[in-house]
């Protein structure tokens, strides 16, 4: 498998009043056309890793890496114009909460068309047709109606489907999904995940799935990176999760209450300072 994305020694740091905070401290991995999960608690640097690849790190932060290459393009030295062309066209990102990440004053259809017309020279009618097709592909029953709705007029599950439609409409090769379902109801979560799963498989995209839910990630991805304090502490095949060696990974696996397992009290993570070294 040729590498779609190569990340070597990625570091993201934020200067603050009280000193430099290193959110990501030397993350390395390569990604082919596969599903990769990144798991960790809040503050482990998992989202910042995704954002750095996408080029969405805040301006005052510093991003350095030995290599950060997407399909042979060095992302760190790429001019802003090239990055804008990549973003949305070849690399796309699904964010957590559709309530906050969709434009509230633009109809859903127009937001999808905007992505398309930014990256391709096509007519309005053609863009509209493709947007409607895409809405149908994310299993929205009445695409023509939803096309004209505003984000506040749809439910969370519908909003997240619209977001997936928006991100996939330009046919990206790499999709970064940052907690795509944690703002949704359990039942809706599964629908959205299966839509995402189907589209990723059909289109042969590379997927980076960022989440704090280790079980969810392992059921969705081929390979999982477990992050703690800005570093990867363990890399493991999803099928092999039961044999996780790092105590942090084991802790994340065990701390969820499971139906039918009578464990009182629940095991909690005993965070060791040496994990962060």
């Amino acid at each position, binding site marked *: 498998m040729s590498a779609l994305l190569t990340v070597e020694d990625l570091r993201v740091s934020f200067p603050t009043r009280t000193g430099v905070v290193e959110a990501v401290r030397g993350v390395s991995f390569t990604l082919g056309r596969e599903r990769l999960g990144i798991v960790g608690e809040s503050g482990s640097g998992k989202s910042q890793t995704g954002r750095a690849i996408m080029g969405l790190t805040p301006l005052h932060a510093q991003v350095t890496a030995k290599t950060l290459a997407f399909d042979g393009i060095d992302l760190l030295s790429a001019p802003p114009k090239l990055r804008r062309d990549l973003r949305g066209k070849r690399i796309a990102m699904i964010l957590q909460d559709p309530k906050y990440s969709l434009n509230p004053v633009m109809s859903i259809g127009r937001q999808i068309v905007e992505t398309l017309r930014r990256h391709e020279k096509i007519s309005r009618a053609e863009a509209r047709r493709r947007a409607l097709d895409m809405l149908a592909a994310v299993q929205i029953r009445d695409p023509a109606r939803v096309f004209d709705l505003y984000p506040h007029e749809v439910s969370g599950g519908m909003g997240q489907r619209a977001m997936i439609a928006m991100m996939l409409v330009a046919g990206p090769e790499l999709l970064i999904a940052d907690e795509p379902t944690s703002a949704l109801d359990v039942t809706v979560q599964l629908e959205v995940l299966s839509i995402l799963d189907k589209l990723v498989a059909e289109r042969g995209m590379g997927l980076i799935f960022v989440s704090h*839910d280790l079980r*969810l990630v392992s*059921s969705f991805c081929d390979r999982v990176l477990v992050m703690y304090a800005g570093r990867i502490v363990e890399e493991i095949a999803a099928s092999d999760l039961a044999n996780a060696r790092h105590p942090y990974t084991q*802790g*994340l696996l065990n701390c969820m*209450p499971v*139906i039918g397992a009578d*464990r009182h009290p629940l095991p909690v993570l005993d965070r060791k300072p040496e994990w962060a070294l």
Partner: protein
Amino acid sequence: MTVAVSVENLSVVYDDFRALDAASVQVEAGESFGLVGESGSGKSTLLRAIAGLAPVSEGTIRVQGRELRGARRDKAFYRAVQMVFQDPYGSLHPRQTIDRQLMEPLAIHGISDGERRILKALDEVGLGSGFRFRYPHQLSGGQRQRVAVARALILEPSILLLDEPTSALDASVQAEVLNLLEQVRRDRKLTFVMVSHDLGVVTHMCDRLAVMQEGRVVERLTSADLVAGRIAEDYTRNLMVASKGFRRVAETA
């Protein structure tokens, strides 16, 4: 066993939307009762109606035998019933120290030994006295939710209303807060009414639960029944499947 909270045919109507439609639940004293359902099923509305935070249009609410009318609650009610909200980022005052937020209920109720109670409450939720003069933004999500629990416990209530107390927290921190809640329930023989969309959490914490859909209670069952799969309603079964996590449907090649 005595009934701690009894809700009969309760309806809550916002304009022409029925958030709660003739819902009834009975919670025994000392038990832990769960309310499960999707967003919009009315589970939080039911909890808020008990606390006087939702406009009741029909039905009766009784807490420890006393009927509550309207949205006004007297001091005795708040001594007996306290609530923990979902989002610890929103439920603590951002510009007050933890000390001041814990002092407020004591001041309202004219309780004098504040000093001792605050230290005891902080100790009980596993935060040392070092956290006493900090502001909410200096705490992590889990620590903030611990403060919210401490604030609820400081009046020594007998009933705790919990509205998704851990859904804003990381999985690993969730375990800590759930353990804390179980611990205080055991120590103080509290009655819990807990809302959650996560069946795993509810079966872990509660003895009995009610499944809600579109403002109505569709099924009442014990956690043991749920675990054993003795389920009558399809809706409950769907929730059960959903909570087992994502399964890839075998692709037809």
